């Protein structure tokens, strides 16, 4: 009854196309005005109305509530047509971009603190500084474009009202995480994000989405609890949760300071897909509907990285202008932390690329690349901490890569979705030659692939070069072992290149299977949004200094980095130098070599042996132990051998997760002992009272 009529050329495409052009004009005008290019003046000085609006104190709160209120309105409209509902979605997302832009002047001054004392006991507070603003801007732009995409993508799916409603709630909580000014507020929105985005992951309601979603929510909750413990430690040992320097108080706590950052890195790292705790990501991202996976990979994992960046550079850095040397002992803590984070990042990069090369499902491969690219970002954060006073390069690199990865990864997911929508196929080996049928998708996929591979003139090159500078500095100023880190960095970049050559070759080039000959694509809002993101990739790739000058350098100056260092190395930095570009030559050549070797020797179809899997290593011994114990208890009547406990069976060792086993264990225990416990009531009472008497009389 609520099924709308499906038209290719609908008004929606016109509307969104218009909005995108309007947004682009506003964005270019504001950014160019702020930067002083094309002879434009700063719009905030030119129009007093904008200036007054930008000083509006409640803006951070307003921006959080806009999508949530939109979600409510959507539900009201959803009964009528998809069209009016999606119009609300689009308008709400568009207005958040404008609100973000309006906050630029206050963010440049460090942001206004908006606090709500008494809420949740300790009070909540919001603030938008430059780091938040960068994240907000990329989030809102990308969210808007993905929502444009989502309209055309979701139109054939069931239950899209629910999807868009939870999308709106997720958006609110992401924005909330980004504008929080203390750890409690951040934790609040972070948990909300876990819960609301769960609904997006499981939206498909297939068995694999349940298991992926189960994985997702429990890992998310685990991360939440890690942050929770860190929060408790912070309250008791430091007392102040706001994102200001706490290093003096932390240094007095001894080893607790490493526990706090360790728990925070684990908590945020789970969301960010960091190496040992990334396992949920390759399952959850592919099963979500494409708009959701684009945002999960594009934005939500970045929120985890943002969390690490935020807590590390605020709590563990000294107050600005109180230190003037990188040899100050106050940096020792962050140096130790940074050292481990760099290596965590390297491991993440390596695991991600290595596993990505083995995948045949496009979305799974992209998800593994998300892990690998998060490794770059995490490594950048590590450098930012490790070098302490001189860490500005790492910070700039990771923040820049957050922006760039958000763009190209969501674009790649959208291309995968577009391919899936036309062919109903996600396996890259079964596709081919699609560039004839989907020329626009093929073009934007090329742009995105060149971006992620780090080819000059595309955006990935800029941030990867800055990150490369960072890691080189790490061994110049710090430990010699980072020489190897640089080599790994280059090899992994080559692996990325190879992986995308493979993707592009199998999907868009090569021979087209006959069944796809009948595809007749037409222009709709899918293409509009993909083209818009591709344009942004090109724009950043060609004007790398714009984002550095407008957003990243002002943020670097707020953090207690060496201003001298920033002025010398980052201001006016040009990435298009011969030495930087020439690094790309061996990377690309190596990438091609791996690809050729891989196709020739079928290396991409390697399956790791079963005993290497964590489940196997962990559960094989524990299963035997349990069965041994069970046989001791019951003899031949051992319930593990019976069919009802098939889940404990060795054959299912791969499919049954830790939680399932725990549930089965508790069922067994319950079945065996609950009745006995209940029936031995008086005995328990007697034993307890005797025990307590013994304890109290004689201890």
């Amino acid at each position, binding site marked *: 009854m609520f099924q709308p009529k499906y038209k290719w050329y609908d008004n929606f495409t016109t509307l969104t196309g218009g909005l995108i052009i309007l947004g682009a004009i506003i964005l270019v005008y504001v950014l160019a005005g702020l930067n002083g290019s094309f002879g434009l003046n700063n719009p905030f000085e030119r129009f007093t109305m904008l200036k007054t609006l930008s000083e509006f104190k409640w803006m951070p709160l307003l921006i959080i509530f806009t999508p949530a209120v939109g979600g409510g309105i959507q539900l009201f409209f959803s009964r009528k047509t998809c069209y009016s509902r999606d119009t609300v979605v689009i308008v709400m997302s568009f207005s958040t971009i404008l609100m973000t832009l309006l906050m630029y002047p206050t963010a440049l001054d460090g942001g206004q603190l908006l606090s709500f004392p008494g809420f949740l*006991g300790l009070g909540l507070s919001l603030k938008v500084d430059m780091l938040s603003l960068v994240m907000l801007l990329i989030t809102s732009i990308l969210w808007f474009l993905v929502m444009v995409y989502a309209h055309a993508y979701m139109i054939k799916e069931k239950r899209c009202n629910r999807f868009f409603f939870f999308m709106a709630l997720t958006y609110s909580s992401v924005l909330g995480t980004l504008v929080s000014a203390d750890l409690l507020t951040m934790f609040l929105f972070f948990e909300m994000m876990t819960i609301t985005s769960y609904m997006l992951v499981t939206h498909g309601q297939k068995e694999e989405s349940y298991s992926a979603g189960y994985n997702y929510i429990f890992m998310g909750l685990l991360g939440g609890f890690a942050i929770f413990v860190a929060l408790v430690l912070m309250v008791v040992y430091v007392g102040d949760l706001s994102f200001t320097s706490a290093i003096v108080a932390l240094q007095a706590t001894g080893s607790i300071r490493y526990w706090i950052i360790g728990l925070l890195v684990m908590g945020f790292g789970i969301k960010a897909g960091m190496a040992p705790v990334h396992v949920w990501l390759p399952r959850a991202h592919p099963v979500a509907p494409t708009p959701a996976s684009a945002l999960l990979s594009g934005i939500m994992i970045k929120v985890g990285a943002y969390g690490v960046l935020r807590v590390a550079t605020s709590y563990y850095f000294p107050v600005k202008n109180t230190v003037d040397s990188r040899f100050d002992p106050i940096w020792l803590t962050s140096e130790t932390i940074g050292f481990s984070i760099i290596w965590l990042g390297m491991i993440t990069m390596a695991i991600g690329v290595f596993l990505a090369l083995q995948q045949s499902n496009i979305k799974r491969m992209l998800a593994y690349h998300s892990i690998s690219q998060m490794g770059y970002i995490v490594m950048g954060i590590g450098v930012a901490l490790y070098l302490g006073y001189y860490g500005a390069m790492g910070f700039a690199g990771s923040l820049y890569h957050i922006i760039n990865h958000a763009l190209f990864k969501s674009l790649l997911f959208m291309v995968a979705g577009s391919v899936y929508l036309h062919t109903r196929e996600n396996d890259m080996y079964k596709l081919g030659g699609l560039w004839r049928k989907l020329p626009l998708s093929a073009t934007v996929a090329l742009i995105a692939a060149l971006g992620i591979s780090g080819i000059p003139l595309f955006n990935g090159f800029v941030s990867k070069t800055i990150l490369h500078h960072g890691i080189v500095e790490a061994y110049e100023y710090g430990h010699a072992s980072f020489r190897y880190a640089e080599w790994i960095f280059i090899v992994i970049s080559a692996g990325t290149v190879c992986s995308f050559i493979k993707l592009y070759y199998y999907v868009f080039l090569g021979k087209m299977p006959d069944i796809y000959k009948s595809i007749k694509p037409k222009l709709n809002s899918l293409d509009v949004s993909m083209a818009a993101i591709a344009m942004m990739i090109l724009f950043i790739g060609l004007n790398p200094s714009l984002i550095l000058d407008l957003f990243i350098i002002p943020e670097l100056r707020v953090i207690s980095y060496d201003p001298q260092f920033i002025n010398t190395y980052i201001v006016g930095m040009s990435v298009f130098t011969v030495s930087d570009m020439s690094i790309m030559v061996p990377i690309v050549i190596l990438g091609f070599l791996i690809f050729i070797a891989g196709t020739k020797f079928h290396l991409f179809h390697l399956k790791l042996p079963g005993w290497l899997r964590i489940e196997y290593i962990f559960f094989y011994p524990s299963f035997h132990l349990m069965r041994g114990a069970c046989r001791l208890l019951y003899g031949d009547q051992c319930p593990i051998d019976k069919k009802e406990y098939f889940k404990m069976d060795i054959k299912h060792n791969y499919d049954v997760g830790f*939680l399932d086993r725990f549930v089965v264990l508790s069922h067994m225990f319950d079945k065996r002992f609950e009745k006995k416990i209940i029936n031995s009531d008086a005995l328990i009472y007697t034993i307890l009272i005797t025990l307590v008497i013994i304890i109290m009389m004689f201890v």
Partner: protein
Amino acid sequence: MIEQLPIINLILLLTTALVIPLFKKQRFMVTLILSFVVLFIVWLSALYLLYHVNTTGAFYYRFGGYSPTIGLELLINPFSALFTFFVITLLMIIFIYSTADASDGIHEREYGRYYILMFILLFAMFGIIYTNDLFNTYVFMEILSITTCAIISIKRKKKNYAAAFRYVMLNEMGSLSYLFGVALLYMVTGYTNIELVFQGVQDVWVIYPTNIIIAAIFMIVGLGLKAAIFPLHIWLPDAHSAAPSSSSAILSAIVVKVYLIILVKVLFSVFGITIIEALHIPSLLMVIGAVGIVMGSFFAIAQHDIKRMLGYSSVAQIGYIVLGIGLASSLGLRIAFYHVFSHGIMKSVLFLSVGAVIYQRNLRKVTAYNGIGYMMPLSIGMFTLAALGMIGIPLTSGFISKFNLGIAALDGGQGIYIIILVVSGILNAIYYLPIIIAAFLRENPENQIYVSKDKVPLLMIMPILILGAFIVIIGVYPAIIFDLVDSAVSTFSF
């Protein structure tokens, strides 16, 4: 006049219980309206007393004007005023629910009797909280356990009788242990008035330590048995799952808490912190609480019947309160009291929303909740909210409990218990989340994909919504409760 209010409340409740049978010939509505009016009056007076003691201070009511050495005494201080207010507020909301859902397994003839029992229950709980006398507490405790037994067995099914029998036997054991302790204390001090006993105990502690140790052990274990503290929780799952939904909520959310309140009184007002610490009771309580938190959840995971699961979940949540009491600091006690509120509200929401599901669909198996969220969005929505609170997601009162309990534990040098809190959160997630996921994300048998309204009476859904709103209100702005709780905690000396 104000001095008379507590006793007027008690008499009013008892009289109502006696008057209800007189309306047997009239329509049932008369009973309900009368009951509600009485509850509302008592609620108003409890509210006024709460305001009064927090502004002008505590006062005593002495029966017949006898001196406390021989007479009975009621003590109305911020502590007792707060908990009577808690009891009557929650009970009034659950009462509204029960008017629509009394059909849950209760025979039509029994409706009136159910409300008689409810009023006697309330009378006993008010008495327990107000009284300042150990023996008087015992008398009210007996009234309470016998009434509770009657409430459990009101459904006239074999299962209920078994549960009620076990309940009454174990509770008698608990009561008698408590009485034994009181007798031992009376032996050495010569009083049963709490304040006089306190002074006496401090004086004779050096001379008769054995008496006092044995008394402490029996009183604590006896109360622990009645409060379902972990290894003594044996009666709880059967009793709570057998009772009608509204009574399960009353039992889990209120009645069990009353015994914990007496436990606090016994520990800190009768024995005093010095004796308690000399006997290692706080560390013992903390260990018992922590074990209860984990084991309660562990058993809850294995349950097939949702009400049994909620019962075991109560065992785990009582562990939180015991842990807070065991910290034996004002921070710990503060959070224990807060959790009495927090758990009371959350568990009522859970039991009542499950009751609504049983009312509409008659589903009791945890695996049968597929797609139920589309048919009963409000009930299951509130169930979800309360379950998230149990897990400890921010914006709910459960998070505030957990967070402050963590802070209190670390502040008291017991950081290890933070791990228990985390484990408990994960365990709670293991048994609550699959239900929520099934309710909202699985296909239901009727293949309904659009949300429809709950088909339960408005009087059932409104209390659930009100309590759900409370979860969020005291979760977002906990100072409302903390202000009251702080003044209640200040009546105990540390």
